[in-house]
């Protein structure tokens, strides 16, 4: 079977298009590249949607945690504490079994036990909590002078938030937020190892890499392929975020614009 044929059969295997059966023996390099790449669709899906949706909740959580009202502050603090203080792996398991038991009481929860929704919700809440903490830190380090200047110009309430607080917060948080985005994409590899079943063997990149490593008993081929894909993805994220950084800092003189370094820090 030629490589072009393999790509045609398996490039969209992870979302159920193409050949139904996975290769069982005589694995070629082409098959491994194609299927692991196919799995990346899920990693990008989980990461991109969780990040986009998590952003909104993260801003809300940060504002809540910085709020003077106890009713807003306490819940935000708790969400951030619970999701940052426990392992994502355990969160996945807990959520899966929670959805499983809810499924018993109502049909509404049927899709929640599938990875595409259930795991997405966990990732969404998790990244919202981590980003929320980052934004909260940024919020607290906005120079007092900026806020006073805004007030002197007569900006209050929503317009002050929209024009001053929010952009400044984002600008300060951006490097750490880039990190969080990279980390989130890496965390998506946990999904299919944590209770959520891979329906009809439609899994993510690590699922297929693990499949090949198990079958060939040779970890030295599939895992480096996976690593290569992820390094590419990481570079892509860093590239996109540095575009964002340039936009956020476009009013600053050139020397003050910190160039986003191409060396992501990996600690959350």
């Amino acid at each position, binding site marked *: 079977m030629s490589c072009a044929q393999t790509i045609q059969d398996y490039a969209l295997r992870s979302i159920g298009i193409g050949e139904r059966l996975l290769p069982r*023996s005589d*694995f070629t390099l082409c098959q491994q590249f194609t299927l692991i790449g196919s799995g990346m669709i899920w990693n990008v899906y989980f990461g991109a949607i969780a990040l986009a949706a998590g952003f909104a909740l993260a801003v809300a959580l940060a504002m809540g945690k910085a709020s003077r009202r106890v009713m807003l502050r306490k819940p935000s603090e708790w969400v951030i*504490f*619970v999701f*940052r*203080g*426990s*392992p*994502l*792996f*355990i*969160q996945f*398991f*807990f959520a899966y*079994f*929670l959805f*499983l*038991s809810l499924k018993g009481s109502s049909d509404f929860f049927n899709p929640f036990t599938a990875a595409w929704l259930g795991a997405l919700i966990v990732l969404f809440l998790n990244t919202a909590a981590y980003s929320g903490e980052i934004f909260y830190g940024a919020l607290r380090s906005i120079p007092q002078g900026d806020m006073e200047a805004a007030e002197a110009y007569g900006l209050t309430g929503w317009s002050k938030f929209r024009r001053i607080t929010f952009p400044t917060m984002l600008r300060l948080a951006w490097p750490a937020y880039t990190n969080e985005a*990279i980390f989130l994409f*890496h*965390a998506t*590899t*946990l999904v299919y*190892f944590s209770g959520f079943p891979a329906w009809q063997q439609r899994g993510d990149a*690590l699922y297929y*890499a*693990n499949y090949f*490593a198990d*079958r*060939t*008993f*040779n*970890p*030295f081929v599939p*895992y480096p392929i*996976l*690593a290569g894909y*992820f*390094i590419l993805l*990481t*570079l892509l994220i860093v590239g996109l975020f540095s575009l964002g950084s340039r936009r956020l800092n476009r009013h600053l003189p050139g020397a003050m614009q910190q160039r986003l370094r191409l*060396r*992501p*820090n*990996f*600690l*959350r």
Partner: protein
Amino acid sequence: MTCTDPATLDGLAWLGCYLTTGKHLSFYASFGTVLLLLAITAPTALLFGFGGAMAARARLAPVRFLGKTYIAIVRGVPDIAFFLFFVIALDQGLEYLRHHVLCPDWDQPVRQGSDFVVCDIAKLPLGSAPQWQHEIYGYSLAIVTFAIVFGAFAANVLYGAMMAVPRAQLETAEAYGLTRAQIFRRILVPQMWVYAVPGLSNLWMVLVKATPLLFLLGVEDIVYWARELGGTKNPSFTDYPHGDWRIWYFLALLVFYLLLTRVSEALLERLMKRLTFGQATTGGAAR
């Protein structure tokens, strides 16, 4: 209280007996497994990290390259991929080495299609070994894997901390005629810790939150037991039949980890206060 006939018990007595079955005791012991992993891995990873950071600063180009590669390798790739990779890779690497030493006149290739074939006496642990040896071996592989991955993280932190020590300190030492080794030992290392502690604290938190991945490495850890014990139990297999309780077991694990991170946070905060006491950093400056 007697637990001989659980069918006659109810309420708290039943729960008390249920929570003290042999399997539950293994479950509680596995919390010890996790803490033991932390206790062994943290210093080992720090050691690996120290070596990595030193290598990355070495004057010899190949050593420096090696150190920097080690630091860079965990960047950009999910750590769980490393976990899955190293456990097999280390096992095969060790068996391969033993195979060459112990069976020098073996003429077949080690990799035959989808099989990894070494001679019988090179197997690790030996096929005839008792169960506990297999468990210890699996656990040791897991520890080494954790140490390698987190060592690279630590190397990055320590490398940064070594770079953060003010140049003037090192230049002064040079002016006093100290050798490179002396400067490293007496000036650089004592001063770098204060810069390293925030990064290492963060790393500790990441390490704590990575411990449930032991489950993926095939160790019977708390995740394993929570799944085992929580699953539905039929009266025909157990004296304590119950429905699907996995959600409660994982809730317990969640609480355990929240407590663990909370306590760590408080302790690390105190450590940082002590280290920065009287130092001219933002943490130590009078506030």
